């Protein structure tokens, strides 16, 4: 099995083995052994739910920091539009962008600029009927990974257009090379990220062989320095080049609004997204051309590396968009070819199946059903597996034993006690 990189990590010392993350993981990728959580690497989609729910802050997202930009001669920041929703009383995006320059970046390229190009390209491809409908957005990397491991029939519906970050990094790098004459390896391109899934996507991309981005820095990580720098600015440079479509991508429904039509659906929050994917797979959802799914509630503003409440951030972004033109970035001839995925999205069948031999898998499932019928069905998580069914699966895989269930154990102890009592 290949090794998986994850940006979500456990700080073992802080983990007390409670079941909060276990119960909330949407792909059942967490188990608790010996009082500590363990992430099943192949199942994790880096959605960040466990970071969100851990009351002990034992889960953290690995991301780059400002020190990392010192390795490069010239640095470009590519900020996510969700960044703009993090500041109180902000009425001009240029203050944020100039602030990013003040903390060490030489140049800024807004991800929302690339988003506007993706919106236009999506509209064009749908109009030309070149895509399998309903088209599913490829922007949220947690959703793309989820489809890759759980929804084989939907892999072909994911639009093979680069996510805005990847396109922004690609264009920003190209422009920086032209402007500075530096070698590609001397230029650092850093995404200012609302979420850990994008950190993973940059490290091990689904869409390209190698990301044009050198790293992702969590918004929460640079927030203190950035706000200080923004307060001290002498003059604000005019750097913003996106319209309301691009900036709208920060919140759920923003990408869909960029489709300029009505036949779309936008769902946010990982559980809601899973329900939509199930219904799409069963063909219950009809009359929709485009489906936007965001793993985080509220969209990217809800990412776990943001600092502000997602709905407050959403309200601020609405205000910022108010006086912007619809779109400030448009496709040129030949751009579209540069925006397509380099690889195909292939279903990873190994992740959830019991065995690659159907006869063996059936035998295992038969045992699982019997074990499951005998478990109490409380789904309490005390055994270290998220549900009784997951525990039955772990037992047939040899990763757990029936007495890990405290209720089964109690029964057994009771029966020993009763026997002893009768012999006395």
């Amino acid at each position, binding site marked *: 099995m290949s090794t998986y990189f994850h940006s979500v990590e456990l700080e073992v010392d802080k983990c007390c083995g409670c079941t909060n993350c276990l119960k909330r993981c949407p792909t059942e990728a967490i188990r608790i052994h010996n009082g500590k959580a363990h992430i099943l690497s192949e199942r994790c989609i880096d959605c960040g739910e466990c970071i969100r729910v851990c009351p002990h802050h034992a889960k953290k997202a690995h991301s780059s920091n400002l020190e990392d930009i010192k390795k490069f001669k010239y640095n470009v920041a590519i900020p996510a539009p969700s960044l703009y929703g993090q500041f109180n009383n902000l009425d001009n995006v240029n203050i944020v962008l100039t602030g990013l320059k003040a903390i060490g970046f030489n140049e800024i390229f807004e991800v929302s600029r690339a988003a506007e190009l993706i919106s236009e390209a999506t509209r064009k491809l749908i109009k030309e009927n070149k895509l399998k409908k309903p088209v599913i957005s490829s922007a949220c990397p947690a959703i793309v990974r989820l489809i890759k491991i*759980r929804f084989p029939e939907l892999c072909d519906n994911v639009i093979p257009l680069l996510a805005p970050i990847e396109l922004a990094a690609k264009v920003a790098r190209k422009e920086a090379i032209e402007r500075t004459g530096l070698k590609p390896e001397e230029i650092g391109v850093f995404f200012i990220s609302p979420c850990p899934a994008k950190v993973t996507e940059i490290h091990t991309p689904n869409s390209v062989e190698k990301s044009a981005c050198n790293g992702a820095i969590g918004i929460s990580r640079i927030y203190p320095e950035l706000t200080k720098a923004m307060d001290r600015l002498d003059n604000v440079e005019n750097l913003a080049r996106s319209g309301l479509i691009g900036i709208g991508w920060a919140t759920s429904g923003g990408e869909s609004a960029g489709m300029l039509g009505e036949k779309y659906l936008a769902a946010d929050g990982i559980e809601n997204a899973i329900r939509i994917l199930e219904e799409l797979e069963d063909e219950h959802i009809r009359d929709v051309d485009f489906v936007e799914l965001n793993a985080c509630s509220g969209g990217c503003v809800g990412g776990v590396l943001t600092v502000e409440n997602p709905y407050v951030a959403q309200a601020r972004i609405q205000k910022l968009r108010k006086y912007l033109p619809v779109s400030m970035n448009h496709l040129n001839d030949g751009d579209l070819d540069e925006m397509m995925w380099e690889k195909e999205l292939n279903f990873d069948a190994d992740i959830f*199946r019991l065995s690659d031999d159907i006869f063996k898998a*059936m035998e295992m*499932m038969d045992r699982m*059903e019997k074990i499951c019928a005998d478990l109490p069905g409380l789904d309490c998580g005390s055994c270290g597996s998220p549900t009784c069914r997951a525990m039955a699966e772990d037992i047939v895989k040899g990763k757990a034993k029936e007495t890990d269930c405290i209720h089964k154990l109690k029964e057994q102890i009771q029966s020993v006690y009763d026997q002893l009592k009768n012999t006395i």
Partner: protein
Amino acid sequence: MSNAIHLHYDVSGDDFTRAGEASGSVKKRLKSLGYNSDAIRRVAIAMYEAEINMVIHANGGYCDVDIYPDRVEILLSDSGPGIPDVDKAMQEGFSTAPDNVRNLGFGAGMGLPNIKKYTDHMKIDTTIGVGTNLYLTVNVNE
């Protein structure tokens, strides 16, 4: 072990929101078996349509599923009113579903035609006033 995995589901007759529970559960199991994804999709769609039919027309019933390595056999059984004219019911767009059901987006008269489209074998045994047994088979076409 026996050569099939047998699953049994009761389909509640009065709750739309629960229709799809059985097909969802079967889909989940087929995925863990590493079943062919096209076959999974066809089973899920056909079974869901049949479940909905049982809820709309027959006040529920039960569903027996046998999973074999190369095929899935499904029996959906109800004690409803029966289907007076099977040929007519098989026509696309023909529906006897009441308005309240249609308002929910069901009852478009695509139920049985869709089931036929997605399965490899379909048989209807129906008796007026007694009930309907629907037998479905989906083969794995590699």
